């Protein structure tokens, strides 16, 4: 497949890995932010190719993982309401709330649907005017434009029965929290290519000038990631810290203006709680008051739901890169994708789930 096979080419990948091993004078600690990137690194065994040249730790960029438990409980409450059709991305259905998940709510009669695009949910609302259609909208800056467009489309169609339960988080505040942590050990970052396709690279320049840490915007295929790692190692070895763009086939400096405008019309920046990490100031998006009619939290007056995480889970340590999934004593035993104790084991893009799914044969037990 064109535009894919060349980024999975074994010869190019091995060549890049050899160059990284050659140039690296010590085991630099790098973090990839996005769960999609973690998934690729594990699936293709990139850590095996790199040996000890770099130490990869995995960032908080799995939207399903960092959605707070209480938000999931709110979605479950909505899905159980007789006049509500709850619509979401497939990943969200299996995510357990405090007591149940959407699959179980569905089996008990709840109307729960999976779509690929939020505009499908708008269409659904148009076709069944007697039901309230709620789209459970999670994600980073990447999915926010599509969710904003769904609200704008519902407004244009004059729909009164469409709303979204929004849980949006932003990457740069999370990186800032991480770099401010006294226990931070990350020396350079692979920034998420899809997020930067939307928002551009400017915010990452602010991080570089504030913290003097190299950042390379990277793609999602093995060659993309190896190239991004090589660029970071070169910067580290040369003592530079800059924002560089490996994912040039998708990311432009300014990002996607139209997408940014749609987001700015509908959403505003707000404090957000991250599952496994806790509250981070100005790290999320909330629906503006002017679009409150489309905000399920306000339409249905869901109020405060409190939820407790299992004590044994070390997800905060994992999501902040302090520890690897395999450092957890519950990994693969008391915590598995079928019975997750915490966020990073929940979704396929979570770091713990990626290790469990692809790498547990390589873990000495």
């Amino acid at each position, binding site marked *: *497949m064109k535009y*894919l096979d060349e980024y*999975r080419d*074994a010869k190019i*990948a*091995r060549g890049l890995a050899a160059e990284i091993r050659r140039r690296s004078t010590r085991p630099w600690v790098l973090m990839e932010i996005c769960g*999609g990137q973690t998934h690729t690194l*594990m*699936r*293709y*065994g*990139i850590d*095996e*190719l790199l040996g000890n040249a770099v130490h990869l730790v995995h960032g908080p960029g799995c*939207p*399903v993982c960092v959605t707070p438990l209480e938000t999931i409980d709110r979605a479950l409450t909505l899905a159980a309401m007789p006049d509500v059709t709850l*619509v979401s*991305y*497939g*990943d969200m*259905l*299996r995510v*357990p709330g405090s007591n*149940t*998940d959407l*699959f*179980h709510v*569905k*089996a*008990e009669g709840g109307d*729960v*649907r*999976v*779509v*690929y695009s939020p505009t*499908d949910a708008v269409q*659904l609302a148009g076709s069944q005017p007697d039901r309230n259609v709620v789209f459970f909208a*999670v*994600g*980073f800056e*990447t*999915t926010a434009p599509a969710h904003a467009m769904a609200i704008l489309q519902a407004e244009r169609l004059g729909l009164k029965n469409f709303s979204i339960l929004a849980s949006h988080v932003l990457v740069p505040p999370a990186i800032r929290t991480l770099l401010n942590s006294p226990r931070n050990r990350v020396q350079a970052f692979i920034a998420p290519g*899809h997020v930067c396709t939307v928002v551009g690279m400017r915010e990452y320049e602010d991080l570089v000038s504030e913290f003097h840490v190299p950042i390379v915007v990277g793609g999602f295929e*093995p060659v993309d990631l190896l190239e991004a790692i090589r660029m970071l190692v070169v910067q580290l070895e040369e003592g530079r810290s800059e924002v560089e763009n490996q994912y040039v086939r998708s990311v432009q400096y300014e990002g996607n203006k139209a997408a940014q405008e749609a987001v700015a019309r509908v959403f505003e920046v707000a404090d957000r709680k991250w599952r496994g990490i806790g509250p981070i100031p100005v790290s999320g998006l909330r629906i503006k008051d002017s679009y409150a009619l489309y905000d399920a939290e306000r339409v249905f007056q869901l109020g405060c739901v409190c939820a407790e995480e299992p004590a044994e889970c070390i997800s905060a340590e994992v999501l902040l890169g302090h520890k690897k999934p395999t450092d957890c004593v519950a990994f693969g035993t008391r915590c*598995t*994708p*079928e*019975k*997750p104790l915490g966020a990073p084991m929940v*979704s*396929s*893009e979570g770091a713990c*789930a990626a290790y469990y*799914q*692809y*790498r*547990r*044969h*390589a873990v000495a037990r």
Partner: protein
Amino acid sequence: MPPITNTGAMRSPAEPVNDDTQDLAAFSCPLPLPARDRILLGHGSGGKLSADLLKDVFLPALGNPVLNRLEDQAIVSLDGARLAITTDSFVVKPLFFRGGDIGSLAVHGTINDLAMGGAEPLWLSVAFILEEGLFTETLRRVVASMHQAASSAGVPIVTGDTKVVEKGSADGLFINTTGIGRVRNGISLSASQAQPGDAILVSGFLGDHGIAILAEREGLQFETQVQSDSAALHSLVAHLLDATREVRCLRDPTRGGLSSTLNEIAASSNVGMELNETAIPVREEVRGACEMLGLDPMYVANEGKLVAVVAASDAQKALQALQAHPLGHDAAIIGHVRAEHPRMVVMRTALGTTRIVDMLAGDQLPRIC
């Protein structure tokens, strides 16, 4: 993870039914909360929840030495002859798809479950559950397709039953087929017989059926020329068993795809497996559709392919036999059984690294970004 074994004798629906926008969730294996008081779609997925139903509900009540083997077919002895019996229900939606329909699928699926036990299929039964209001012409088309499939396979349908339920109680029509066959002399195939060193073969391109079905479903806007591979495999099996007696196990990788089948064999035989990613045959169109949908062809259903575990000494002979048959033209040796990492299937990637190929447990839901 406990061993998960599929059973033709007690199989739950191959394709869960629900309305269109939910089909993707149904297509994969919904987990993870333990099932409590209700049946979830995941109980029909062939994965962990299906295994739980067997363990908690069916086997405690119905278990006996034949059923407890949990192969795709039961093998029983009668007056010195060994008979294979299997039954399967078909609830596929849509009823008609590129390369087949529910009728041909119901004939092929049951023939294949017999064939995987090394049996020559002799007779089929068919039972219809029809929904009030179904167009007679639709039923006529399905029945004509069954006739066509059964007669070209040379396996007559010798008995049947029809029930009609109220509108809303079934999704158009459901079909159950049961098959009886005679196991070849000297042949004993089982998922528990794989041994270190054995070769693992597949009979052709993987994932065609699942992608053809998904392409027909609403809510997924993509077009493809991919056709279902639905086919009766008994003549391919006969051809293979004529060429070599060193076949340990045959399975058709339907629900859950190749990865589930291999994990079942690995668990049942308490062996490891190592696959070679570049050797696994997947059509370019199927790869493309999977990329777009966030699916892995290793988990996508097939209805006209088999997996064979064959002693290393006869691997080439088996490969040539498969390739010489029209249904095995694109057969390949995709890996080997290992003593290392028992009960785990490990893939050697194109990059030369390794990774696990797990049971279907989380990768087949659409990705968010």
